[in-house]
């Protein structure tokens, strides 16, 4: 006997899947299944439409945001105080100098014969003021000649110097200025 005491005795040929589908119960299941499928399809379509609408709105917001940023950046200078604008431009000018190139040129001219103590840039006039010490006057003059030869500088001069006493071991301290090549006051 099969499960639950039933007698599985039946002379009819084995039922195929078509016979199972023919049972009324399966028709109800099929109809319910189709109804659920249809409802799911409608729901999915609605959700997809809402998602597309949201994407569209997002794109519009992003475009507006982008447009708002660009005019604000362009209009900002016109709205600034003239003094502040002047200061800002001066700062930008200073930042745009080839400082690396100039420092390399100063170092290359030194060749270890003097000590560079101080540098003061004047970006507005395109000048650089320096304070250095050399072992002797010849070294100072040689350094200045080498600075003149640097393509980064168009002019070099000594603004002040202090010569030591003869036969003294003291160094020569001097101040110099140089004009970098692209800047003309």
């Amino acid at each position, binding site marked *: 006997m099969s499960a639950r005491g039933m*007698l599985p005795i039946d002379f009819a040929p084995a039922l195929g899947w078509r016979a199972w589908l023919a049972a009324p119960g399966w028709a109800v299941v099929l109809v319910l299944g189709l109804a659920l499928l249809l409802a799911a399809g409608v729901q999915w379509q609605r959700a997809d439409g809402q998602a597309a609408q949201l994407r569209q709105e997002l794109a519009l917001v992003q475009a507006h945001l982008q447009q708002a940023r660009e005019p604000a950046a362009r209009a900002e200078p016109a709205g600034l105080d003239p003094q502040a604008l002047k200061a800002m431009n001066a700062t930008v000018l200073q930042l745009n100098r080839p400082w690396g190139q100039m420092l390399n040129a100063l170092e290359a001219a030194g060749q270890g014969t003097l000590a560079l103590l101080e540098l003061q840039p004047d970006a507005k006039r395109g000048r650089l003021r320096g304070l250095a010490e050399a072992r002797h006057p010849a070294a100072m003059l040689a350094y200045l000649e080498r600075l003149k030869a640097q393509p980064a500088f168009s002019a070099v001069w000594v603004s002040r110097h202090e010569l030591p006493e003869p036969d003294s071991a003291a160094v020569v301290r001097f101040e110099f200025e140089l004009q970098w090549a692209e800047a003309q006051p």
Partner: protein
Amino acid sequence: MRESWGRTLRLGVAGTGVALLQTSWARRQPPKLLGRRLLPRDEAGAAAVAPAALAGAAATLLAETHSHGLPATLVLGDDCVRQWMVTPPANSGRLADLQAVAAARFEQLYGESADGYRLSAAWQARRPFLAAAVAAPLYEALCEVMQACGLRLQSMQPHYVTCWNRWQRGLAADAWLGVVQGGQLSLGLRQGGRLMELRSLGVSAALRADAKGLRGLVQREALRALGAEPSALALCGDVPPAWLAAGGGGWDCRVLQSQAELGLGDAGEALARLAMAGLA
């Protein structure tokens, strides 16, 4: 199409004739008896060798009721089939072994080969099981009728098996189940809820009117089986009215009837009850 949706047919086939019943899976609609055909007296009781007559009656009935394309269930009267218990051999593990034993037992009981029969059984490797056989000519003739009428054959079961499957779960473990059809009582001896023996007993007209005679019959069968008398007997099918009062004296005897059979009343005819076997 709309009219046929949810409808099924039940065809009861017995030696005396055929009955056609229409059921609907919608519970509110009771089964409807579409018609029946009785075989002439000289052919009655010889259904096993007159399949053409039975098939012809079924075909005529189906044609008249315009039942094309419906699923159909056939209930074969216990007089159209042979049923016997088979004890499986020890250490039998293959279906072929069980089939061989069943065929051998058939030949031993009925004196002829099972080759001309279609077998079906509740195959069991370790316990005795029930086997049934229908004559191949009858089976093929009925299948041809089903095919010719465009019916989808869903089930073809013996009367006793149909009733067993319908009622056995509600019975006490040692209650016996009897199915009455005309002059035959198929008595199933149950133990522990399982079918141990199936006896096919003739019921005379005198016995049909004798409630005490029924109990005596049950007691004799219990002795033959070397078992105790059952505490209860459940009957279904064409139960004689006199047997309804068979219970008493510590012995329970009740008749099991479906709602459809109750609708037939006492005048319900045996073929109609056969077609209704197994319904709720």
